[in-house]
């Protein structure tokens, strides 16, 4: 038997899901994070507590939410409150994991989802804006960034710093007034899994995706990555992961 076929979205979801341990709270945004959380809940993290921006806490993700405020974000949840309660719950340190995306990322995990180009207004390209991302990036303990991997996205400096990563490096978050010991934790890209080096807070290659070489990752990154001597390899989605993902997480094939 060969390995099961899968697409790149499915791979991202599976790798993101594996980053979440059991028994944690996770701030879930639209799209891949929802699928990753749902998959994790059904695989290895039955006690994962999803928290949604506009008030849902502890939903049972039987059906996949299609938006951050919709009914399924609190379906059979333990609480349905409002955005202030959720953001302030994160401010008090109760939210372990957050998920982030963006159009650009820099070596310190800072993200841009606001504009492309040098000028704020009028901009060359207007993107949707921060949304809850800045709050998630500021207040959750560990953030997982999910992003397509190419040189246009992995840039030395973001055009606009929408959401804080480690800002300018070690100590910069704390200097800015952000809560200590928080920040980006992993980057799950279409090519690799990355984290941030303890001492420099710069992005570091942890493992490449199936069929991807270290060289390819470096070539598709617009800044110098920290590349340790030993780089791991991400396992492809297992048959079980794919079955649950396709049959239970997103049977309507809304996302995958």
């Amino acid at each position, binding site marked *: 038997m060969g390995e099961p076929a899968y697409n790149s979205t499915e791979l991202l979801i599976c790798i993101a899901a594996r980053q979440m341990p059991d028994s944690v709270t996770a701030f879930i945004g639209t799209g891949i994070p929802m699928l990753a959380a749902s998959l994790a809940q059904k695989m290895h993290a039955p006690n994962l507590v999803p928290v949604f921006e506009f008030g849902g806490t502890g939903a049972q993700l039987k059906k996949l939410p299609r938006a951050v405020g919709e009914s399924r974000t609190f379906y059979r949840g333990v609480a349905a409150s*409002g955005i202030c309660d959720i*953001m302030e719950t994160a401010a008090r340190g109760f939210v372990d994991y957050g998920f982030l995306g963006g159009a650009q990322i820099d070596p310190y995990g800072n993200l841009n989802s606001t504009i492309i180009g040098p000028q704020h207004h009028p901009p060359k390209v207007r993107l949707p804006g921060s949304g809850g991302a800045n*709050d998630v990036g500021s207040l959750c303990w560990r953030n997982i960034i999910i992003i397509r991997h190419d040189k246009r996205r992995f840039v030395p400096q973001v055009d606009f710093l929408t959401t804080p990563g480690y800002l300018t490096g070690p100590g910069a978050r704390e200097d800015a007034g952000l809560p200590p010991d928080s920040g980006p934790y992993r980057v799950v890209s279409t090519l690799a899994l990355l984290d941030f080096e303890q001492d420099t807070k710069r992005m570091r290659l942890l493992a490449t995706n199936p069929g991807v070489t270290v060289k390819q990752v470096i070539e598709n990154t617009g800044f110098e990555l920290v590349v340790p001597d030993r780089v791991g390899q991400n396992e492809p989605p297992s048959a079980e992961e794919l079955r649950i993902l396709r049959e239970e997480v997103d049977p309507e094939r809304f996302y995958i």
Partner: protein
Amino acid sequence: MNVIESGLGELTQPLDIDEFRRWNREKSRVLVDKLMTEEEAVSRFVYDGCYLGTELYGTVRCPMTLVREVVRQGKKDLRLAGQGVTELDLLLAAGLVKTLDITYIGLEVFGTSRALRQAVESGQVEKVVEWSNGGITWRFKAASMGVPFIPVRSMLGTDTLRYSSAKVVECPFTGQKVCLIPALVLDVGLIHVHQADRYGNARIEGISGFAFEMSRASKRLIISAEEIVDTEEIRRYPDRTIIPYYLVDAVVHAPFGSHPGEMVYLYERDEEQLRGWVEASQTVEGTQAYLHKYVYGVADHEQYMDVVGRDRLASLKAAVEGR
């Protein structure tokens, strides 16, 4: 107060809590019948150049009937507080927006908003001030508390703060840096709810988004409701009232008032029409055709429901999941 950093963004709505107090002092405390059509509510209380806000977000419990009426009446030069999908997209697409306190305007899973890109990149929207979702809601919260600002630990260290009108100061108790978010008082707030009585006492089921804060941060408040209930019902369960009547200026009866979005426990969102908008909004012609079909070309919400189709609406109701 020693300010370490000041956002470059302008306060697109002047900040004057004492003026807000004086305004609120003049609002009636009497239970009077405020039930009216969306046409009357919007023509009486929304005006060119006013600062407008909508709640909730995306495709969830948005005041679509009220927003369509604002577009129909062509209220222009609007200043907006922005987080939205279908509701603010309509206002942008119709060219009615002058300034934007933006946090997120996009189509969520369907991608970015063409309407936003066109309106902002062209400079048609004259000013854009950045916030996070938390930030903009905390602005309402500050206003709802009757104070000029509240401190938060978000937005710090970023361009989001730099292009906002927030400020950074040192906490006089702990010495830590905090971000001060200025209060935002809306000229007009639009909120869609599950139930209201004719005086404006309103209830919401499921998540409450930022209805509590925004209702209390609005000088004028227009409520649309799926159902008009008797005040007797309100008085039996006063703990379920999230918006008390004295905050409210108009009550509009609007079943399916969040369509094509959803209303929890009542109806599902209309995927087909949402996708229809995504597609239509890619071009100027498509946008105009959509607006003509669903807004300009229909007289009111009743006719809108006819155009959408009563059967289709019934099927959205039938699709609702239980509790």
